[in-house]
């Protein structure tokens, strides 16, 4: 490691105007993350045109800060209004929102801020130290592993939907089926398009999630006519926020485990933060004592996914910078920004522009600290949002979702998709179908199909799924997850009969 260059970069970051870009980027990222539908990716897209006149290092500082802070920003609406600001925050909803309903929004926000900061720091530090080892491991991932990884992600969602495993699996299956709409990725044959040109590229994922999670949720809130917080939930005092900070430090082993997991998953291209969050939640539920409170407003259910979400950013940097393989959609946009500033990934960036790499990592480290300070200071004020009548903010969310969907590709078709998925999401929620499994199926279906067919064409063929060690381990984990509710049922029946 070039310590001289590292310290010089740090001095640039903390000097003027570096610190200004760090703080402004963090605030912009947090705002984008906090608004459901917008995300860190959107923040980068919006900021890229403004970086034209900057030197690459400053540009990366600004973009890195905005992107890094967005994930924490996304936790705020997840906790307060049951709508993830970003898709990776979906797992935070499971316990964050029930905490908000119990009047513990402040604790959840405090815990989310601290876990995000610690997760981000740990993720980036792990990445820095494990760069050579991780690259070697990632190189061993093949089609079989990608396929298994996609299905494992789906199984986790189905298992997490407690009591509705079959509905979770069916929703996931339906999501995968819907992901087949459009061009066949290998033969280019059109499938399920019915001559509609709009469907050639498949169902767009972002409008679908706007509809499934945001519109469906807000419809439900308006119909029920309740505020998000229960009558007991008045406001979250500053003390409650600090209680969240303390809770996080009490659960340091969980933060470490989740961050390590998040970093690892983040480094796998295409799998994304949503899976990281759910993986972390699942491991927290399985490894923590007194886990029966998970899903009912347990602070550990907020800490684990938030730590993993922010840690995954460090992992996602690896394949992006080293191979030009983006670990997430935001990283794909980052690649564009690097090219725009004349930086080539791989050997070029690591040898010739190492300072830019350091700046990017330091910006993402710094933004977590700034975001935590801002988050802890304003979290209790933000908690007041939960008392607003849904009839007031509901229609605004409808409008923002529709504009957000339109803004992606300037297409009214995306607006129709958002509304259709909104209605479907409302009905699915009502009858216990897993909307997140449907979304994940839609998201990972394409990757699963390509991986499966490429695996069949590979030398190892079908046998490769079971002869390759990592693929086999993933398969067995999946098998255990699916069968565990039935084994539990069998044990329960046996206990009752005894």
């Amino acid at each position, binding site marked *: 490691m070039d310590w001289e260059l590292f310290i010089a970069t740090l001095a640039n970051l903390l000097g003027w105007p570096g610190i200004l870009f760090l703080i402004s980027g963090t605030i912009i990222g947090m705002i984008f993350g906090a608004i459901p539908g917008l995300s860190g990716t959107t923040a980068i897209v919006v900021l890229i045109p403004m970086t034209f006149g900057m030197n690459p290092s400053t540009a990366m500082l600004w973009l890195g800060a905005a992107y890094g802070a967005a994930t924490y920003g996304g936790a705020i609406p997840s906790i307060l209004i049951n709508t993830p600001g970003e898709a990776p925050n979906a797992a935070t909803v499971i316990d964050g929102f029930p905490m908000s309903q119990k009047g513990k929004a402040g604790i959840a926000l405090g815990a989310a801020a601290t876990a995000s900061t610690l997760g981000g720091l740990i993720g980036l530090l792990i990445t820095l130290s494990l760069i050579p080892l991780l690259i070697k491991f990632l190189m061993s991932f093949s089609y079989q592993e990608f396929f298994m990884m996609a299905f494992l992600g789906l199984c986790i969602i189905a298992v997490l939907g407690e*009591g509705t495993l*079959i509905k979770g699996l069916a929703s996931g299956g339906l999501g995968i*089926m819907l992901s*087949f709409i459009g061009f066949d990725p290998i033969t280019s044959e059109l499938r399920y398009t019915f001559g509609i040109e709009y469907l050639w590229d498949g169902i767009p994922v972002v409008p679908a999630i706007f509809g499934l999670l945001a519109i469906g949720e807000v419809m439900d809130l308006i*119909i029920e006519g309740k505020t998000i917080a229960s009558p007991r939930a008045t406001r979250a005092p500053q003390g409650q926020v600090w209680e969240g900070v303390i809770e996080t430090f009490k659960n340091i082993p969980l933060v470490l485990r989740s961050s390590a997991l998040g970093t690892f998953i983040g480094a796998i291209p295409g799998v994304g933060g949503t899976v990281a969050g759910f993986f972390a939640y699942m491991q927290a539920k399985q490894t923590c004592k007194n886990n029966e409170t998970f899903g009912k407003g347990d602070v550990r259910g907020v800490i684990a996914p938030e730590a993993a979400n922010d840690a995954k950013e460090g992992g996602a940097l690896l394949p992006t910078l080293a191979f030009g393989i983006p670990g997430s959609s935001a990283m794909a946009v980052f690649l564009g920004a690097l090219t725009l500033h004349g930086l080539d990934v791989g050997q070029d960036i690591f040898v010739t522009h190492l300072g830019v790499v350091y700046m990017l990592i330091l910006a993402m480290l710094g933004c977590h600290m700034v975001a935590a300070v801002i988050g802890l200071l304003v979290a209790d004020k933000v908690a007041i949002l939960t008392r607003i009548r849904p009839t*007031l903010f509901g229609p605004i969310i409808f*409008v923002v979702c529709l504009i957000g969907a339109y803004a992606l590709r300037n297409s009214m078709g995306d607006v129709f998709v958002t509304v259709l998925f909104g209605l479907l999401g409302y009905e699915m929620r*009502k*009858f216990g179908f897993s909307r997140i499994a449907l979304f994940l199926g839609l998201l990972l279906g394409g990757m699963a199909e390509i991986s499966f067919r490429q695996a069949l064409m590979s030398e190892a063929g079908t046998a490769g799924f079971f002869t390759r060690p990592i693929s086999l381990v993933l398969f067995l984990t999946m098998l255990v997850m699916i069968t565990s509710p039935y084994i539990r049922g069998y044990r329960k029946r046996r206990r009752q009969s005894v």
Partner: protein
Amino acid sequence: MKTEEKVLTFFLLGIVCFMMVLTFGYRPGSRLVPQVIGFCTLALMIILCMMVISPKFASWYQKVEGTSPLIGMSKELIESGKKVEQKDMKKREISVVGWVLFLMAVTYILGFLVAIPLFLFLFLKLWAKEGWVLSLCMSGTVLGVVFFVFVYILQLPLHEGIVFQ
């Protein structure tokens, strides 16, 4: 409520069946994965349909899975059902769906910059029964923010509506 769940489950089953039938018209390579996934999803959907139709089968399945999937209604709905009359809820449900479709239709016909204030004002005034001042202020403010962020700053060409295009 049970009928509504039956409709949803059979509707989803219908989608999967329809997609499965269509796969037979595709080339072997293109239909392989859709058929494998479709077959599994179809099996799951059939089980769900059986659970919706037959309470006996549903209770047997609950025992097998070892959990209690609340067939018919989610927990939250059952809890909220105590507070909101089912009949009243049905009316509210239909009207909210109507409002969402209204927003989509007005946006398509008149464009975002007309649809946003129109929808917000009508929704707040007629559905939420808010006062004139609040309804007007909120509609104006949201329109202003949308215009400032999306048109002025982001320079996004918002849909103008088929009437004005």
